[in-house]
């Protein structure tokens, strides 16, 4: 055996071991999450940081990020199948896989955080038509089924004729799904942080940015793993699309806060979340605005910074910014006291008139990470056993 063959064999063997190591690491995180679920089951939610004031915590931050990104990542597929762009079409299977993986992770976290996770099938049999949560049960499982069908039409040659129509259905379904996710908060009329019609479109635009960022990260790792170089022209286009999505989502978030600032009954909340609320303004300005928007925009648009690494870094910061945004939106939104008696100063033994405090416990953080682990394991195993590597034509058609 020649030396070059030997070194190639050694590299393959190393990759093989690394693959199993990564899988084991993902499995370990998942095991830790299952242990947390067991602990929460036996001791109750008392071992989490959540309470009667902050009823949704870190698990919901992870779950909602994964679900929103699962919808947004399908943008790549939609641009291919609905608008017929070849370089996106080549990436539609990978985008669909990531969607399924993140949806599975997000839903698992959401279900395992329930007070009674053993009853998770109950909404299917006792469906309350007025509940947006119940609608979402249909929307999430429907997307799951549709994306599986979409993948089938793409990966099975005989089914290729159906790709466009199923792709169109996926396109419509995910818009409705993210609208549903936004509506969970938009329907909360009494809370100052929520109850706004802008939330569904805001979540749709946020999903574009988060999904694109996740897609770009996975694609970069896959190309590096397979010793391939992504066509610079393709990377340039993807990078700019991410830039547009980041700008659009920042615009939506700005409008959401501006409208709140204009309504006198919501200005107190805005001052809290943007200025006086301690950890929340810090996370909003430094975590979301600077790390999640300014830094990636610089990395994308500053001349001379067009490398693979800066595009990867931009995607990573968008994802981290997304988590910061959701932490502020979900937990900060509940920390601000509910205004039951507008215009009066109130106090009680149940936190009325006081900022609620929240410190996430290790159990709920592990549960959230478990969702990421599920998405990671599904993706890692699938890209190894099936052909999800994008196959670009020798020329860019559009």
């Amino acid at each position: 055996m020649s030396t070059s063959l030997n070194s190639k064999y050694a590299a393959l063997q190393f990759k093989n071991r690394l693959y199993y190591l990564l899988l084991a690491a993902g499995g370990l995180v998942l095991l830790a999450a299952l242990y947390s679920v067991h602990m929460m089951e036996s001791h109750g939610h008392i071992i989490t940081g959540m309470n009667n004031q902050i009823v949704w915590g870190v698990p919901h931050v992870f779950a909602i990020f994964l679900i929103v990104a699962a919808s947004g990542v399908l943008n790549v597929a939609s641009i291919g199948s609905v608008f017929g762009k070849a370089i996106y079409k080549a990436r539609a299977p990978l985008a669909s896989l990531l969607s399924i993986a993140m949806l599975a992770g997000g839903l698992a976290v959401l279900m395992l955080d329930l007070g009674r996770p053993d009853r998770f099938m109950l909404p299917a049999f006792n469906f309350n038509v007025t509940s947006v949560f119940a609608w979402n049960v249909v929307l999430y499982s429907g997307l799951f089924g549709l994306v599986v069908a979409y993948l089938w039409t793409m990966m099975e040659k005989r089914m290729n004729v159906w790709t466009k129509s199923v792709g169109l259905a996926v396109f419509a379904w995910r818009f409705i799904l993210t609208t549903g996710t936004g509506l969970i908060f938009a329907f909360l009329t009494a809370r100052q942080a929520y109850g706004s019609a802008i939330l569904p479109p805001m979540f749709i635009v946020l999903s574009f940015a988060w999904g694109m960022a996740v897609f770009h990260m996975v694609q970069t790792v896959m190309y590096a793993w397979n010793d391939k170089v992504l066509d610079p022209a393709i990377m340039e286009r993807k990078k700019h699309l991410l830039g547009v999505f980041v700008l659009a989502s920042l615009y939506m978030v700005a409008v959401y806060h501006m409208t709140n600032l204009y309504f006198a009954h919501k200005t107190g909340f805005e001052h809290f979340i943007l200025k006086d609320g301690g950890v929340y303004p810090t996370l909003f300005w430094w975590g979301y605005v600077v790390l999640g928007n300014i830094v990636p925009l610089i990395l994308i648009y500053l001349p001379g910074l067009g490398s693979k690494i800066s595009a990867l870094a931009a995607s990573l910061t968008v994802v981290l910014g997304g988590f910061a945004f959701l932490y502020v939106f979900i937990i900060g939104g509940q920390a601000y006291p509910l205004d039951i008696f507008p215009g009066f100063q109130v106090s009680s033994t149940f936190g009325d008139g006081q900022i609620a405090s929240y410190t996430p416990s290790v159990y709920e953080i592990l549960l959230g990470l478990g969702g990421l682990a599920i998405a990671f394991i599904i993706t890692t195993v699938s890209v190894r056993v099936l052909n999800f590597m994008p196959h670009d034509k020798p020329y860019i058609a559009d």
Partner: protein
Amino acid sequence: MNDIHNQRRSFLKTSLGVAAVTVAPGLLLFDVAHGKSEAVSSKVRWGMLIDTTNCADGCHDCVTACNKENGLSGGLAPTDSQWIRKIEIKDVSAGRSFALPMMCQHCEEPPCVDVCPTGASFKRADGIVLVDKHRCIGCRYCMMACPYKARSFVHEPLHNQNPDVPRGKGTVESCTLCVHRIDAGKQPACAEACPNKSILFGDLNDRNSEIAKKLRTVASVQVRSDLGLNPGIHYQGI
């Protein structure tokens, strides 16, 4: 032949005896639990009129009575259930302070019922908003939706429950208006315990009831009436 007849007779006797012993305690228990065979009627709408001008500062008798009646610990940690609480209210511009008890407002259009994915949150025909503990999955969406922060989530295992008021770890709960007492023809525990008789309980739909008469004669408000939920709890003196 006679032998077979005798055997059959004694078998039937024993079977009847066993059946009676099995069924009788059930029937007796049903009676003990004050189970009513007739359904509640929407002709009735239970409600309260709370006179805040009479609600004494520092008095927590309604809270204590509620805790005792419903088997709540009375703990004040953020994870403890509080079905009723006293809110101290200060009108800064007028320099006036007062206090009032706040609990589930038993809305006619309850947001908790709208958002509940399984229908565990429901409104009885007589206007009482309840949680079916067997259906609640513990998603806490109702807690997010309630404009009065009236609901609590059971964060830890429960012991020594009141058999009349079943509760469950991992489910959401709130004031039941002491539905078990109402069904037995009694008043809610808080109304009975108030030393100043500040909580008037009754049928809002009955024009001749004391509460309906008083609502016609005194100025009262429903909290966050701007939301259009038409709560069954009215307050006087806010």
